[in-house]
């Protein structure tokens, strides 16, 4: 008894606030969570913040979107506009478009919120894209993060779906034209296309159901899925810990950076307001989707300059690039009374299909080629993985060609060139652009590696020219400090893995293919300078004043 009475008295906070927080903490264990999460370390680099930008844009989308739902009416019933925008006064239109106009002109702050919402949507998908590019080019998708890469890809698709369903809601001419294109694409799917279209639109396009259905998808299903994916994504980030760029003291077993609390949390919290501020500024000063210009949807008019929002642009561009006929070769067939229109089906679904298939499979492809089953937490500098970087740039170039094609008419008018020529050039680039981009990128990456190697071995060019007693001029090279040199030499440079027999002593055909790919991946390589080479170069450096000429020749050792 006496022992228990002398035990530490239960903690009693001194202040009211302290007692209150203690009360809550004892019941929900907040301090434990905070202790755990607050000590999570995040490396600091500007390129690590695009995921955050996407997250914050999404939060802003939820907030502004909620505001918009208060005033938006997703009905396709017909009405006559009686609001304050005179050029549309008394025009027959759907209730959805009517309410979008009212949000724009008659709800206080409505236009601002609409513009915040739309700019945030564009920024959301853009920052997602840039985030994925960063992850790809730095090799952050490698083990253990392959599944998180897939979750990210799913998020990209969901973001596009959210964007497209939202783009269609105001029921203006532009969005109706966009829906009509989607309807055409759906109908081009063999056999089931027409059924899907009729199911989706509740009959023949446009029907009276589509806006309401898209609205449910846009404000309920898609955001819920996005939220779920974000939770999974962030959960995995916590489990895996954050990757870091190579540097002294950084390896696959540690994370060097700031703890979440308080510095990083403050930065991240502040960054939310920066993103919000930038979006608010854009929304206040720049028009986006001026639906009043486009007028109500009517299936007959199609305005010049009809484009989807940027993230659907590559599909639209592919459609624009596809020729209807080549000489006498048609792409449309009638098989058993069903029309198969390859000139819609091919461009609309195949490039997007290829891009997303390769995107989802890439971590496994590289893993198979390299047979690399180790965990990677230190990132690659893009130049140190030349083939991967070149593949990424080739894919991005392909995407950009299609993307540019979506604006072919504007390229034609604004650069005073013929629309036909723009299309011909982009068609050519569609095929050779990625190949050129691959070759050029790989060469640039290898050249940068060689430059790194030279700087590591011989130091930085100082620009100081010295004349020696016998008349020769040399440039003095300053040696690098160890930290900078580490960055230039501390990376892995895999060599091609030849085919090896399996447990039965057989070299399978698949293994041969893998070996061939491995050779293609890694045969062009610039090895990082080894300690021995550094040593030799360092010793060499002492004689530099005399043997500067020989120095240049020694690059290849």
């Amino acid at each position, binding site marked *: 008894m006496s022992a228990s009475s002398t035990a530490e008295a239960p903690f009693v906070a001194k202040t009211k606030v302290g007692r209150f927080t203690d009360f809550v903490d004892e019941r929900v264990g907040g301090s434990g969570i905070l202790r755990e999460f607050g000590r999570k370390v995040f490396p600091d680099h500007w390129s690590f*913040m695009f995921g955050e930008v996407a997250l914050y844009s999404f939060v802003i989308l939820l907030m502004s979107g909620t505001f918009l739902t208060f005033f938006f009416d997703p009905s396709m019933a017909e009405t006559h506009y009686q609001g304050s925008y005179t050029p549309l006064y008394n025009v027959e239109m759907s209730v959805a478009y009517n309410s979008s106009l009212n949000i724009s002109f008659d709800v206080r702050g409505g*236009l601002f919120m609409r513009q915040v919402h739309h700019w945030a949507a564009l*920024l959301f998908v853009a920052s997602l894209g840039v985030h994925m590019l960063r992850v790809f080019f730095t090799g952050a998708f490698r083990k253990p993060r392959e599944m998180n890469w897939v979750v990210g890809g799913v998020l990209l698709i969901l973001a596009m779906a959210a964007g497209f369903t939202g783009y269609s809601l105001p029921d203006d001419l532009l969005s109706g034209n966009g829906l009509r294109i989607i309807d055409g694409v759906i109908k081009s799917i063999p056999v089931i296309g027409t059924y899907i279209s009729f199911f989706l639109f509740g009959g023949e396009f446009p029907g009276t159901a589509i806006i309401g259905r898209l609205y449910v998808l846009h404000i309920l299903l898609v955001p819920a899925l996005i939220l779920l994916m974000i939770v999974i994504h962030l959960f995995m980030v916590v489990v895996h810990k954050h990757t870091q760029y190579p540097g002294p003291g950084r390896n696959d077993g540690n994370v060097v950076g700031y703890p979440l609390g308080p510095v990083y949390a403050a930065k991240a919290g502040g960054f939310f307001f920066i993103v919000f501020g930038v979006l608010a500024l854009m929304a206040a000063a*720049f028009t986006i989707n001026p639906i009043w210009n486009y*007028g109500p949807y009517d299936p007959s008019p199609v305005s010049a300059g009809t*484009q989807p929002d940027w993230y659907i642009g590559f599909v639209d561009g592919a459609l624009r690039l596809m020729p209807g006929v080549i000489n006498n070769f048609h792409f449309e067939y009638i098989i058993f009374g069903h029309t198969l229109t390859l000139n819609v089906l091919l461009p609309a679904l195949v490039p997007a299909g290829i891009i997303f298939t390769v995107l989802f499979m890439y971590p496994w492809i590289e893993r198979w080629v390299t047979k690399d089953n180790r965990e990677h937490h230190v990132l690659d500098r893009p130049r140190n993985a030349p083939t991967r970087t070149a593949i990424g740039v080739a894919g991005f170039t392909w995407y950009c060609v299609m993307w540019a094609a979506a604006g072919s008419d504007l390229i*034609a008018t604004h650069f005073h060139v013929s629309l036909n020529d723009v299309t011909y050039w982009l068609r050519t680039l569609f095929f050779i652009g990625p190949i050129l981009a691959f070759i050029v990128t790989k060469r640039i990456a290898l050249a940068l590696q060689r430059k790194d190697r030279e700087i590591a071995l011989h130091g930085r060019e100082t620009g100081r020219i010295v004349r020696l007693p016998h008349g020769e001029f040399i440039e003095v090279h300053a040696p690098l400090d160890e*930290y900078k040199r580490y960055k230039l030499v501390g990376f892995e440079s895999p060599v091609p893995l030849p085919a090896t027999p399996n447990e039965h002593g057989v070299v399978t055909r698949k293994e041969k293919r893998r070996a061939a790919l491995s050779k293609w991946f890694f045969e062009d390589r610039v090895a990082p300078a080894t300690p021995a080479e550094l040593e030799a170069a360092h010793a060499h450096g002492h004689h530099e004043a005399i043997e500067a000429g020989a120095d240049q020749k020694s690059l290849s050792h």
Partner: protein
Amino acid sequence: MKALSQKRRHPLAAIALLLMGLLLTGGLYAVATSVNQAKADTTSYSASDVEQGGKLFAANCATCHGMGASGTKDGPSLVGVGAAAVDFQVGTGRMPMQMNGPQAQKKPVQFNEEQTSQLAAYVASLGAGPAIPEEHLLDEKGDAAKGGELFRVNCAMCHNAAAAGGALTRGKFAPALADVTGKHIYEAMATGPQNMPVFNDSNVSPEGKRDIITFLKTIEANGSPGGADLGSLGPVSEGLFVWIAGLGVIIAFTIWLTSRTS
């Protein structure tokens, strides 16, 4: 009536019927086309205007359009294009053409108003064609909403819903319509310059044209309610803006936020 029904099997009945049919269709056609025919009122031009215009034409236009505006291989005949066509082409500087190309470009006007009017008088005297529209059609007091509907149905596919212009094939284009006078818009519709189709009076009535002009002038005067319009080019300029300006500013902030560490 009885006499008529008795003679319906007369050998000449078929011919008579054919004649009547032809007369009817021909007459209707004549009525229909005369509706489209702009009331070429050469009356308002004096003989000296026509004469002066003829001289100007011979000196400045005949190289391509031929003496008497009968056309050469370099330029079409202008007989019957009307005063409106001349007023548009010369009044906007498109004619005399600067250089051969997919279509005549706008440039500083080469003739003063009097000379333009004399040229118009001369060409109008060669054959009936659309006349320069009357003032009451250009008063910009029509129904803007009606004009907007007409514009979206007839014009937006080339000129863009916000009249920002658009591309046509092989280097041709539909120009942006901001800063174009109501008179020139009307004349363009009536005469179909360059690659533009003619919107005659039975296609879009003079009141409809007035509404369209009212609509265009209204949206031009309204400006952009949502802030800078980024050229009214739609999602392409918006996408470019978010990638370059939006993301650019955000990246600048990320660099600033992470700049204090190695």
